[in-house]
């Protein structure tokens, strides 16, 4: 059973990330189960293993995916437009990570964390061609996973 779930984890990972990249939407357990023709319980078990390995992040107090990093499952202020689709990142790093993962030109818009004014960054042909502002890491690296939502 354990090794079967671990093997399923590979398929779940590929499906989740490819679906997020292709559509801009991170699939949730029921959709994943239907796509892979597995039970929802099996998929949730596989997701738990992936979360323990920090491949993705589950929502607090629930069984849904919060982020298949760099793709955020819920709307955020970090918006990415790429390849004719809209994505959300969980933070500035992940918003840029979407452009990196897709290998695509991208326009990223995000609010200033303090005043909320909008800023734009653009990736063209693998280069950051336009940028504004600075990125602040509030949490030291070895504490990132103490509270990944805040990080």
């Amino acid at each position, binding site marked *: 059973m354990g090794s079967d779930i671990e093997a399923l984890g590979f398929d779940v990972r590929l499906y989740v990330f490819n679906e997020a990249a292709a559509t801009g939407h991170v699939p949730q357990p029921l959709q994943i189960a239907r796509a892979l023709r597995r039970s929802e319980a099996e998929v949730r078990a596989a997701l738990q293993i992936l979360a323990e390995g920090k491949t993705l992040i589950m929502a607090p107090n629930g069984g849904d995916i919060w982020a298949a990093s760099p793709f955020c499952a819920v709307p955020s202020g970090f918006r990415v437009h790429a390849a004719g689709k809209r994505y959300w990142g969980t933070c500035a790093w992940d918003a840029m990570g979407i452009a990196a993962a897709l290998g695509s030109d991208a326009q990223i818009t995000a609010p200033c964390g303090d005043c909320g004014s909008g800023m734009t960054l653009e990736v063209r042909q693998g280069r950051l061609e336009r940028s504004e502002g600075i*990125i602040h890491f509030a949490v030291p690296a070895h504490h990132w996973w103490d509270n990944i939502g805040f990080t």
Partner: protein
Amino acid sequence: MLLFRDEAHVDRWCGVREMTRGALLTPEQAWQLAQGWYKEKLKPEWRRPTVEEAEALLASIGLTGAFWNLRA
């Protein structure tokens, strides 16, 4: 990791939360970090970087010192 208009906005944000400033990256540094961390994420053969690999990535873009220590 939030984006701020400038350092004064970072300090105001930290002050409201009674936090000391963390670390600042230029957008170019953040882009290099994003590429190093995520460019392989969609590939079947992807695996999470080891601590050594992550340290090498951070160091390659000038992110060294206690704040970026992954082993503490």
